[in-house]
């Protein structure tokens, strides 16, 4: 069963995302902070990481950067809630660093799931993720 790690500091939103993905038969791992995520990654390598860009201890940008270095095959979706800085800039950076898709909160759940499946299918079919 494909595994997805959700890194999101907003608990409610994280729980919703978890429920949404579990309903699609994914195994979901949750991390409230970037640091927590890195601890999990020491033991378990997910198929996909969905990360919020702005988080308290280590921001999403750093997390993506780290992931791409250590596990370049892991699929990444970045979500940004906008706010303190222009979210679009962060999403831009995330894309450059290697995030496969980016979403701006609030986002369409249907579209979101579509993209998750799309990436997972690519993996299942054995193809490399798009550059």
């Amino acid at each position, binding site marked *: 069963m494909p595994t997805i790690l959700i890194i999101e500091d*907003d608990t*409610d*939103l994280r*729980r*919703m*995302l978890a*429920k*949404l993905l579990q*309903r699609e038969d994914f195994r979901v791992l949750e991390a409230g902070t970037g640091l927590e995520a890195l601890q999990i990654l020491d033991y378990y390598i997910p198929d996909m990481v969905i990360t919020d860009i*702005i988080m308290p201890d280590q921001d999403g940008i750093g997390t993506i950067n780290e992931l791409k270095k250590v596990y370049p095959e892991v699929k990444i979706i970045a979500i940004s*809630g*906008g*706010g*303190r*800085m*222009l*979210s*679009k800039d962060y999403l831009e950076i995330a894309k450059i660093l290697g995030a496969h898709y980016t979403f*701006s*909160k*609030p*986002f*369409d*759940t*249907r579209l979101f799931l579509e993209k998750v499946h799309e990436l997972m299918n690519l993996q299942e079919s054995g193809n490399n993720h798009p550059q």
Partner: protein
Amino acid sequence: MKTLRILYLEDTDYDVDLVREYLEEDGIVFDLIHVKTKEDFINALKEEELDIILADFSLPSFDGLEALDITQQLISDIPFIIISGVMGEELAIEALKSGATDYVLKQRLSRLVPSISRALLEANERATRLKAESERQKYDFIVNASKSMFTLVDRNYTYEAVNDAFCKAHNLVRDQIIGKSLKEVWGEDSFDKYIKKNFDDSFRNNVVRYQAWFEVPSRGLRCFEVTFYPYKETGDDVTHTVVDTMDITDKQKAEEAMRESEAKYRLLFDHAAEAILLEKDGLITTCNTRAVEYFGYTKQQLLSKGLLDLLVKIQPDGSDASKHASELEAVTSKGGLLGTNWEFKKKNKRTFIADVSAASFQLKGETFYQFFIHDITEKAKAEESLKRLAEAMEQSVELVAVTDIKGHFVYVNKACADKLEYSKKEIIGKHITQILPPAVSKETLYQMNAVLADHKVWSGDLDILSKRKQQLLVSARVSPIRSKEGDITSYVYVLRDITEESKIKAYLRQAQKMETIGTLAGGIAHDFNNIIATITGHTDIALQDIKPDNPVYEDLEQIAKATERAKGLVNQILTFSRQVETKPEEVRIDMLITEATKLLAASVPKNIRIKQGMAAECGGVMADPSQLHQVIMNICTNAIYAMKDSGGILHIRSKSLVPTQRLKSRFPELEDKQYISLTFKDTGTGMDDATAERIFEPFFTTKPVGEGTGLGLSVVHGIVKSLGGEIFAESTPGKGSTFTILLPCLEEEKQKSLSNADHTDHRG
């Protein structure tokens, strides 16, 4: 021997011959005039020079007593001897009583010559005595006529004689003095102390003279010159002293006055602030001490020079010193200022600037010139520095004004007059309150006056009014000016116009506020997005889990719809805080406006018209067209809303401009480049300053609750700012509002490509 001239009245010639014989016998040389009648007698008395008269006592027509009477009437004091034949005792006595000198009987003519001799002697003695008496009287008169007091004192210190002047001066009659001793008259004390020694000195044959002030009863305190002359009555010994006491008070006073006046003029001369030179034939003959000080030469050295030697050859005005000197005659004839700002040189080669007055006068046929040289170097320097100071103040950009103690302007500098829009002439004399708006509180003035009265400096901000009633905000510093005595004589106002500055400050404050609100709103939006995303997600999950006929299906759909609205609102906030994703492209403003107005036209009430005036040169801007569309729609909607009751016209105009200095001072972020200016001018309700100040703040709205979110203009503001532009509103309540948007123009090349693309489009 002198010839004796005899007149003989006798009718008998025989008797005459007889008398002749007797006389000749005695060897008397004589001239005898013999008359017989009264007529001849009188003629002889009148015409002849006679020594003696002889007369017969009884004549036929005449007699001796009558002859005596006639003689006494015509000639005084001439011996008259009666010669008679018979003469009784009684007649003889009567004749002698009547004044006859003697009588001789004819019978005893031998007595005649001795009688004549005695009569002549007596007459001679009498004449001598008379002459002496007359002389004495003259001297008496002279002595008594004199105003000097004379006394004659003998060696016993006793007054022997005094003149009238002395008596008068002491209010005494002569008898009260004559025979009295000095001691008796002046008292023992005075005599011993002051009087005696002078007399003693004089008695030793010395002339003593002294001057002294003393009081005399008739005239009071006077000054006298007293002289003691030793007097020798007989022989070589001094027997008396004559004291001459002369009142010299007036003379003394006149002399004193003269001396004083001389001393005064000498003092003036020596201590005058000016150097004074007296010149004759081009050489200084006299100079005062100031001249010595001025020039540094000794008096002696100065006396060998002339005025020309003391002048610097080339004078400050470029002229030759000798030229000035040649004007001397002309100037002094009128008497007055010879020249100003002449440069003199001192012995030590230093120079000084002076004014010179000159006068000339004649003395013993020679012409003297007098020069008054007044050093004005210090004055000139002080004037120069004062002039500089005044000039500096005049040129100062600070506003400087001086008022008298009551607050009337006595001076304003140019900057101040210009700022207040008055001419200097207009403002001088005006009261300070005439440039203060009525709204300046009495409390402010009271407080200012209290501080100033305390001799302290007041500073603070003041609203002032220009002549054209333009209100200005100035930062003021008011200081009292005190006289030497410490009294306040005037006040100096130094003002700085901070109207613009305070506007900029207000703008910056506003900008900062918007920035803060933006950051805050952005933060809230972030959290909101998480919440909305959560709600959306759960709602979607729930909707998937149930069938449309489920009773909660519709409720969930309503939640989904509301969440959409919330999403839109948050997006607006993010737009205001410039945190949304935009897709900038080259936009033609005019086309965008045309599009927007077309859209609006459908919903605009009939009583509102929209007019559009687009300047041809206005090109494009780089912007997200949908955002710009939102901006235009929002402002137009507001304008229409403001005119919804009254109706009116909305003018939309555009032009291109480069920001003026004034605009830039208000909006410091504007640059020196081309901007497109869009103005939206409505004729609606307008708004007051308080409202205008806050319209761009988020959640600020004047619309009734439920009609507006208060986000519209804040979003517009956010969009314009994100495009590097500015937006501001000007409004008059009741007249309408004008919104101006400045957006940076596309650079020229891009501009061209835009218009090319445009052309292509048209052709396509």
